[in-house]
């Protein structure tokens, strides 16, 4: 073997070794708002400017949280819930009216499976608290609530005047508010001239621009192991959201009860570990990243999951079922890098659905 061959080989190995060292962590500004952790990375901004921007975003989140809190009696949403329970109508703020219309439309799109009107069921299961302790639920109570069929369609929104034809409707925006907040934050930062940012609200993430001449990279939490199941590049304007049974849950008699409740049965879903969806740039990419995973998570088998993804217009999805097996779309498979690959992976072509 000639000397130049060895030099060539050496150069190859060094470049391979260096390619693994090209990334570096971006300092993110973290805060606790919205009852969860918010983290904002602003790589191009000075530390002072980044802190100013993050404070302004957090202030918006704080206002939103005060307005939408489902179990603080003085929030606007709680007052609306009280009015609905009393059979009265209430004048709401333009912002809340907009959110009600948007969730009404998304709920209809999911055929009532994404259902923010089941606040009473969520409270019954004990998820209307900051801490979750095992709750023994009376089956009769659940049955009674399910039979009342609370639905977003029962809300009547006339300009800013809101009423409900069903007094059992109790609104909970737990599956929507974080996504909405992502859209607000992304729009705010864009108006401030920020081109590159990564916003993470309680695990839901939206990307602006890029970072170090490459797309933002996001790790997807493994539902049962510490660390990630996969990583993914999140291009400009894209959002990612995961619904999992591992964040808000309690164990009782060897069963896991997570916070995502099937409105048809009134019981927490036990057929899915996690659903991750990736949403291309759109005005409501943040909202969709939060909402669209819910009907897929609640669906019980493969055909129902695929149908739910189709109804919500989701092309990029990764579903981990109760056994740890993965069902994913071809589009998702193409852009995902496994870190802890599952033993069973099934890939489906969404075009064929």
């Amino acid at each position, binding site marked *: *073997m000639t000397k130049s*061959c060895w030099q060539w080989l050496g150069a*190859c190995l060094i470049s391979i070794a260096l390619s693994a060292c090209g990334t570096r962590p971006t300092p993110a*500004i973290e805060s606790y708002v919205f009852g969860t952790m918010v983290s904002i990375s602003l790589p191009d901004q000075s530390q002072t400017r980044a802190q100013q921007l993050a404070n302004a975003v957090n202030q918006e989140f704080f206002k939103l949280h005060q307005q939408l809190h489902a179990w603080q009696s003085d929030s606007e949403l709680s007052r609306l819930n009280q009015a609905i329970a009393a059979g009265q109508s209430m004048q709401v703020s333009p912002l809340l009216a907009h959110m009600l219309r948007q969730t009404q439309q998304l709920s209809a799109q999911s055929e009532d499976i994404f259902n923010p009107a089941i606040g009473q069921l969520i409270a019954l299961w004990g998820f209307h608290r900051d801490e979750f302790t095992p709750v023994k639920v009376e089956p009769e109570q659940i049955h009674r609530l399910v039979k009342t069929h609370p639905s977003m369609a029962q809300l009547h929104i006339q300009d800013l005047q809101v009423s409900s034809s069903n007094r059992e409707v109790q609104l909970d925006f737990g599956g929507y508010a974080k996504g909405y907040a992502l859209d607000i934050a992304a729009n705010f930062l864009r108006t401030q001239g920020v081109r590159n940012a990564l916003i993470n609200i309680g695990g839901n993430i939206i990307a602006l621009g890029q970072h170090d001449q490459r797309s933002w990279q996001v790790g997807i939490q493994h539902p049962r192991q510490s660390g990630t199941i996969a990583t993914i590049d999140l291009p400009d304007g894209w959002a990612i959201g995961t619904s999992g049974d591992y964040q808000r849950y309690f164990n009782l008699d060897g069963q896991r009860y997570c916070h995502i409740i099937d409105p048809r049965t009134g019981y927490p879903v036990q057929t899915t570990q996690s659903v991750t969806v990736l949403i291309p740039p759109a005005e409501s990419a943040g909202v969709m990243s939060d909402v669209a995973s819910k009907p897929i998570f609640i669906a019980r088998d493969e055909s129902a999951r695929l149908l739910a993804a189709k109804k919500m217009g989701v092309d990029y999805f990764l579903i981990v079922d109760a056994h740890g097996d993965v069902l994913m779309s071809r589009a998702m498979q193409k852009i995902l890098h496994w*870190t802890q690959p599952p033993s069973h992976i099934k890939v489906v072509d969404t075009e064929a659905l």
Partner: protein
Amino acid sequence: MKTSGAWIRPLSGDYLIFIIALALLGWLFSHYWNWQAATRLQIHQGGQLIATLTLDQQRELSVSGPLGITRIEIDHGRARVHSSPCTNQYCVHQGWLSHAGQASFCLPNRVSIRLMGASSSYDSLNY
């Protein structure tokens, strides 16, 4: 008599296969080996970074939050939330963390620990 010299002396094609195998191995490692050992631990409380510590030590720390004291343990290359005043104990159940990018949060007590490496394999975690 035939010696075993033909076995000892590789042909140029053998070198080629050797080079390709080595390059492929290197590429596979850099591409799929996303676990980078962590070297440092960052501790946040209430959104503020309160400490960055090297993982190369044996140490216990106490961080106070709104609910009380969260105890964090560092043990030569790994770290965990050892005890927490929260009721759900998710942070404690997460156990030992040892790879760059891994994190454990205690939302009720507003404490988070995150392992940092020479490089993290991602910018943010979706959960």
